């Protein structure tokens, strides 16, 4: 770990206590959505489109309804008319009720293979599966457009007759006047680009493509709903945001939020992909019709074909530099597939693309484009990996052409406090320089690479991080522990982090805090677990909750000792001190001692509050990777990997290291093996874990991490989000390592054996 002088000393923060949810998960007692079992439960399955683009001419469910055990079949018409109400899809992501409902159940037209057209529920899963075959759907196939550049051309089939290009963000601006597949265009600009290129000694321009990539969470989507006769709807599901599910259900089903209780179960991975509702509204409608609880689960191929991967992209980057390495200008063109409905992460990609650098002159154009593929969803630093793949690869080529060390080139151009961001506001205290310096100082970077066809690459990555609303209540138990209740879904270690931050504030041990995640009926409003927001946002909640408890305990101690409150202090060591007693002995009570006396001195103490804070600190990561390329097979083997990251303050270093290693693993998948392989008919050819090649332990070395701690001044404990940054640098770092190994620059991800071999053969011709 590399701590900057700003970091204070802590007692609990920075230690590595056992995770509160560890035992239940290890012994299999933790309850996931699939474990929900209720009396009389029915099972739902979805009839999905075999076509990527087609008109639905007729749906006949009569044979399915005649099958013994089948209780109901529903289509789009069983939902209330949706209208164009705006709906949140995660921090900042927006859609409309109409588009969201079309993704849940198509009305007149299907826009991707796997889109739901009907659903059936039955007394068991197998009957429901059999009934699907009995639902007759007649389609009129339409031409398929699955390439982002093709979709942007005037000759392309138009997916939505009413779609018009809007400026800056979906839903927000005046649309253009002609039907198009380009849902929105945004532009960020600074300085004079032409003058910047004129001042450059070299200019490098390259084109890049990236595949759609799936989050690959191990737990498929699931949802169970029970619509009680009193009108109360309860939903158990795997989600990153129970309040978001509640809000979406209320809009789609047109019932008040107070009638809905969403209970988040343990989650087997999300990475952004579980911010969206797919099954819950269907299960709810079935439950309303049948009066029974209804459970729905996806198979793995349904997850691949019909949930929300990240965008495939086409990117063009042009950058100019002086001989001394100063970057003088950049043009970045980003075209992102949104999938069937508007809303790709191109905005985030645009804001992250040049974020590691302070460049005087640039233009960034971003296009959100609909294609006949599943609607994209957030995926860990949505939009950033593809953008940085392109920009960082060009930066590495510039360093190579100028014969400057790639980290020195980056240090020369690094963003610092005060550097303007593409969106206009200036950076506060950031750690880009510290990360770059830690990379340069690392033994990995200083080591020699030996052997043929081996190479080394480096790259930077950035993510903006966000905050959000969080609620919590804390009740002090007589045994000196705290029952902490939150609505914050724990996807990456939030329970441990929040327990530690509350413990730090109160001067007690993390083990004395017992966190519980509850449903929407049992806690105040709580935002999504996403955008690397949780440790930052819930950390603020814990800090203010801790201060509130300290105040109440100080008041109680004064009452117990019968002394004025202003003579009593709560120490950071968790000991309450008052003036000396009549015998001159110091008055002291530990947290545990006073907890044991609360009941008989005025009653138990608890506190609850909701916070929504600004000041989330953006973060940088820098990766160093060594690879070996097999010239006969095109296989790339990773020999060594070091990930350096500004983590603000590492609350629980083991979790932070795990987040970084997980991000690297997913980034390596994007770089080398993962790919949506499309047929000409718009069908994904590899919708299974066997064929969609996520990296396994056999594909990865130990991933070394270096935690650089540049505390975020916008947080009482200096927290910055850590979860998303580490997925950003792997693609360009590996691209550079491959180029160093075999002298070939690749511009398409994944850089699969096929891509590597083709490049080698082209080179030999």
């Amino acid at each position: 770990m590399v701590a900057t002088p700003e970091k204070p000393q802590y007692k609990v923060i920075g230690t590595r206590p056992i995770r509160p949810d560890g035992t239940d998960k290890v012994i299999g007692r933790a309850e996931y959505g699939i474990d929900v079992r209720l009396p009389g439960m029915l099972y739902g399955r979805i009839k999905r489109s075999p076509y990527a683009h087609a008109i639905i001419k007729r749906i006949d469910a009569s044979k399915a309804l005649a099958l013994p055990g089948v209780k109901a079949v529903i289509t789009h018409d069983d939902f209330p008319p949706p209208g164009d109400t705006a709906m949140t899809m995660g921090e900042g992501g927006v859609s409309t009720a109409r588009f969201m409902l079309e993704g849940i159940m198509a009305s007149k037209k299907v826009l991707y293979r796997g889109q739901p057209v009907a659903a059936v529920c039955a007394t068991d899963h197998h009957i429901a599966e059999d009934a699907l075959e009995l639902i007759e759907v007649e389609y009129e196939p339409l031409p398929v457009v699955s390439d982002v550049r093709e979709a942007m051309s005037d000759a392309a089939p138009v997916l939505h007759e009413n779609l018009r290009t809007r400026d800056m963000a979906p839903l927000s601006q005046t649309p253009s006047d002609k039907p198009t597949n380009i849902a929105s265009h945004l532009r960020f600009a600074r300085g004079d680009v032409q003058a910047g290129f004129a001042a450059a000694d070299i200019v490098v321009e390259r084109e890049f493509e990236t595949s759609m990539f799936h989050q690959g969470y191990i737990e498929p989507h699931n949802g169970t709903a029970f619509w009680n006769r009193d009108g109360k709807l309860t939903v158990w599901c795997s989600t990153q945001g129970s309040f978001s599910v509640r809000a979406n259900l209320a809009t789609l089903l047109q019932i008040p939020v107070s009638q809905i209780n969403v209970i988040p179960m343990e989650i087997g991975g999300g990475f952004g992909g579980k911010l969206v509702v797919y099954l819950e509204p269907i299960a709810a409608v079935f439950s309303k019709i049948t009066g029974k609880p209804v459970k729905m689960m996806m198979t793995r191929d349904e997850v691949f074909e019909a949930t929300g991967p990240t965008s495939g992209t086409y990117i063009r980057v042009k950058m100019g530099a002086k001989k001394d390495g100063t970057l003088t200008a950049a043009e970045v063109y980003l075209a992102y597939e949104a999938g069937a409905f508007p809303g790709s992460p191109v905005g985030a990609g645009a804001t992250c693309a040049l974020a590691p650098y302070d460049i005087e002159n640039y233009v960034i154009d971003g296009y959100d484009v609909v294609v006949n593929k599943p609607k994209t969803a957030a995926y860990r630093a949505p939009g950033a990996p593809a953008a940085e793949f392109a920009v960082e690869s060009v930066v590495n080529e510039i360093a190579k052409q100028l014969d400057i060390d790639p980290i020195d080139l980056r240090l020369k151009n690094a963003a610092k406090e005060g550097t303007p961001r593409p969106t206009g506001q200036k950076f506060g205290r950031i750690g880009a320089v510290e990360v770059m310096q830690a990379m340069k100082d690392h033994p990995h970077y200083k080591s020699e690479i030996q052997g043929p066809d081996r190479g080394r690459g480096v790259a930077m990555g950035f993510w903006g991080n966000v905050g959000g609303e969080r609620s919590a209540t804390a009740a002090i138990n007589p045994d000196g522990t705290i029952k902490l209740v939150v609505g914050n879904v724990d996807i990456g270690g939030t329970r441990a982090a929040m327990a530690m931050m509350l413990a730090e504030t109160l001067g007690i041990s993390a083990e004395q805090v017992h966190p519980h995640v509850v449903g929407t009926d049992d806690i105040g409003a709580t935002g999504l677990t996403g955008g690397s927001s949780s440790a930052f946002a819930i950390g603020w909640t814990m800090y203010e909750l801790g201060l509130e408890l300290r105040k109440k305990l100080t008041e109680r101690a004064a009452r117990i000792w019968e002394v004025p409150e202003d003579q009593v202090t709560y120490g950071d060591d968790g000991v309450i001190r008052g003036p000396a007693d009549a015998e001159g002995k110091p008055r002291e009570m530990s947290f545990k001692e006073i907890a044991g006396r609360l009941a008989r001195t005025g009653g138990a103490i608890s506190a609850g509050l909701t916070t929504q804070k600004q000041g989330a600190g953006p973060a940088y990561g820098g990766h160093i990777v060594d690879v070996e390329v097999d010239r006969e097979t095109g296989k790339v083997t990773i020999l060594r990997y070091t990930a350096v990251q500004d983590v603000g303050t590492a609350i629980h270093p083991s979790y932070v290291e795990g987040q970084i290693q997980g991000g690297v693993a997913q980034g390596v998948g994007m770089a080398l093996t993962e790919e949506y392989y499309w047929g000409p008919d718009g069908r994904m050819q590899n919708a299974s874990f066997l064929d969609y090649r996520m990296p396994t332990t056999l594909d990865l070395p130990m991933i070394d991490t270096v935690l650089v701690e540049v505390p975020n001044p916008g947080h009482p404990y200096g927290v910055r989000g850590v979860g998303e940054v580490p997925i950003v640098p792997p693609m360009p770092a590996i691209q550079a390592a491959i180029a160093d190994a075999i002298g070939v620059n690749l511009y398409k991800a994944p850089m699969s054996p096929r891509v590597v071999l083709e490049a080698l053969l082209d080179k030999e011709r």
Partner: protein
Amino acid sequence: MVTVVIPSPLRRFSGGVERVEVEGASLRQVFENLGRHYPELRDRIVYDDDLRPGIAVSIDDEITEDGLLARVRDGSVVHIMPAMGGG
């Protein structure tokens, strides 16, 4: 006075002007006063007494969580941008 920086996609509603100085103690007042100069521009940012979905605003380099109620001070700089989603 508060400086509102107009992002390039919206400058066609401000006659190409990048920075506009307006009075106001809250974002609501700032955009109301902006609307007196450029009514169409205001409508691109504000809808139904709220920021439009998909729009975010930073005040003095911090993205606000308080919508139109966010306070601004004399000399504040306001930027308008697309809201970003996380994963």
